[in-house]
């Protein structure tokens, strides 16, 4: 049978049978190559063996959010990189693109995700949200409205919220510690 002939001809580059999934390999590559993270970002792993679940800390070194420490959880599923990781902010913060439940409006986390993007692309995107909050894609509509109409007031609101103060009756997490 030709099927058998094909088999003999089909000598590849050697045997391989990892139980490691394609998602794991890709994630290992994404993470293992991230040795040049800027000092403003830190990744931590509750379980070093579980690379699918980790936490990100961002400390912006300029902009409205300078001085704060912002924490996110990343959950990557076995369909990565076909599907993007799920990213949530674990603190209640005052930000036009992050709602009070921690959902993040970042295009590459949803509609513009592509398998060529990687974990690093998301970190860059999140960092950018703190440098340039975007009033055009609001998740926190009130914050976006203030940013659009009165930058001074927005700045004051951010500063107050970051110290654990309240804005419009909502108390925010103290991110200055």
């Amino acid at each position, binding site marked *: *049978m*030709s*099927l*058998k*002939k*094909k*088999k003999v001809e*089909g000598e*590849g*580059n*050697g*045997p*391989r*049978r*990892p*139980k*490691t*999934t*394609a*998602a*794991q*390999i*890709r994630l*290992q*590559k994404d*993470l*293992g*190559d*991230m*040795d040049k*993270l800027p000092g403003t970002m*830190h*990744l931590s*792993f509750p379980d*070093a*063996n579980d*690379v699918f679940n980790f936490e990100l800390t961002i400390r912006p070194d300029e902009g409205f959010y300078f001085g704060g420490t912002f924490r996110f959880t990343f959950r990557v599923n*076995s*369909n990565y*990189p*076909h*599907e993007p990781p799920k990213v949530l902010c674990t603190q209640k913060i005052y930000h036009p*693109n992050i*709602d009070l*439940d921690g*959902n*993040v*409006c*970042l*295009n590459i*986390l*949803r*509609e513009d*995700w592509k*398998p*060529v993007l990687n974990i690093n692309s998301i970190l860059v995107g999140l960092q950018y949200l703190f440098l340039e909050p975007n009033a055009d*894609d*609001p*998740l926190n*509509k009130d914050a976006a409205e203030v940013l659009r109409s009165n930058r001074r007031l927005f700045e004051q609101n951010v500063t107050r919220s970051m110290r654990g103060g309240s804005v419009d009756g909502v108390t925010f997490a103290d991110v200055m510690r």
Partner: protein
Amino acid sequence: MALPTVTQSLPDADRRWRDIYRYLDRPGPFMAEGFEAGAAVKEFLHSIKILVVGAGGLGCELLKDLALTGFTDIHVIDMDTIDVSNLNRQFLFRASDVGKAKAEVAASFIMRRIPGVKITPYFGKIQDKDEEYYNQFTIIICGLDSVEARRWMNATIINMYDEDDPETLKPIIDGGTEGFKGQSRIILPHMTACYECSLDMQTKPTTYPMCTIANTPRLPEHCIEWASVLEWPREFPDKKLDGDDPEHIKWLLDRASTRARHYDITGVTYSLTQGVVKNIIPAIASTNAIVAASCATEAFKIATNCATPMNNYMMYVGDQGVYTYTFELQKKEDCPVCGAVAIKIQVSPSATLQDLIDLLLDRKDIQLKKPSLRTSATSLYMQAPRALQEATRPNLSKCLSELIRDGEEVTVTDESLPISIQITVRFE
């Protein structure tokens, strides 16, 4: 016309497969190179085991097509039970079968209808089965409904290949449909592009910008996404949304309808809610029939060599007339599944992880600079991020026998390498 021994016992075998035998009994100018007509090829067709993965829309068609094409030892695997909404196209099922296992009902239907064909069902997940199970088949043919399941099948079958055992090379024929569109393709592990090679070609599930669903809904889908993505986790932080639970869908429908009314949007219905949550694309029965026919035909050609199999991807678009185009998808050199370099390494069990890394760094053929090493379950040594590097650094001085089992696979990645390396570590 000589009858192959397997089917001699069947009274009408020569008539049942008369037309098939016309192709197999004599050589001709259009046969594929190396085709040998006669009893042996018929015997081979009737005796090989073929696995149908999925017994849904494509699976029903595939089982019928294969059984009528002369495959007589067919296995079928499916984890689903029959739902009333399947009955319009999954024609092996009747209303009285609702709730029963698809694989089992489909198998008994075909066996009742086509004597002489043996179908062995397995009601369960593809992940339940190991290499030993998949290794018994000559051809694997898939009628799956998700990218995830296809990636798993693809990686499993490709990783099974062992150059010392040619029997481990299994052609995969993969069919897929989405409404009026479909595709069929042949994957010959390590010879053609695999599923992972072309992963970035897959359309991803429809999603809407978070800020649109949160603030400026215009479509009924926006309202449903708002209910499922934002409201559900707020209301039930610890309960996972289950698209198959009518209670869950009803809750979403309620919330979404209220929001739709507020924004003057119409069209939020129960079935749309379930469709958005489960990302359902309405199935077209004839698309399944066309794609399955292509897959079964390719299986027949591969099994008998009576004609040249397609090379290697057929797309079908049926929404404006009929358009198909067959082309060769290229193998991706840095594919994480079929592009991975595999090497075997012999070390003393008392060697340390650092010794193993030094051994890898010394090899001129792979040119590593900063390798990160993991097994499927543990991080052995990661160069980055810093927290992982610090957590895994103590492993460097540990004996390999403390960290891995004899013969375990270790995945190596390196920023200077676009591909990954799979090493099998054997202890001396």
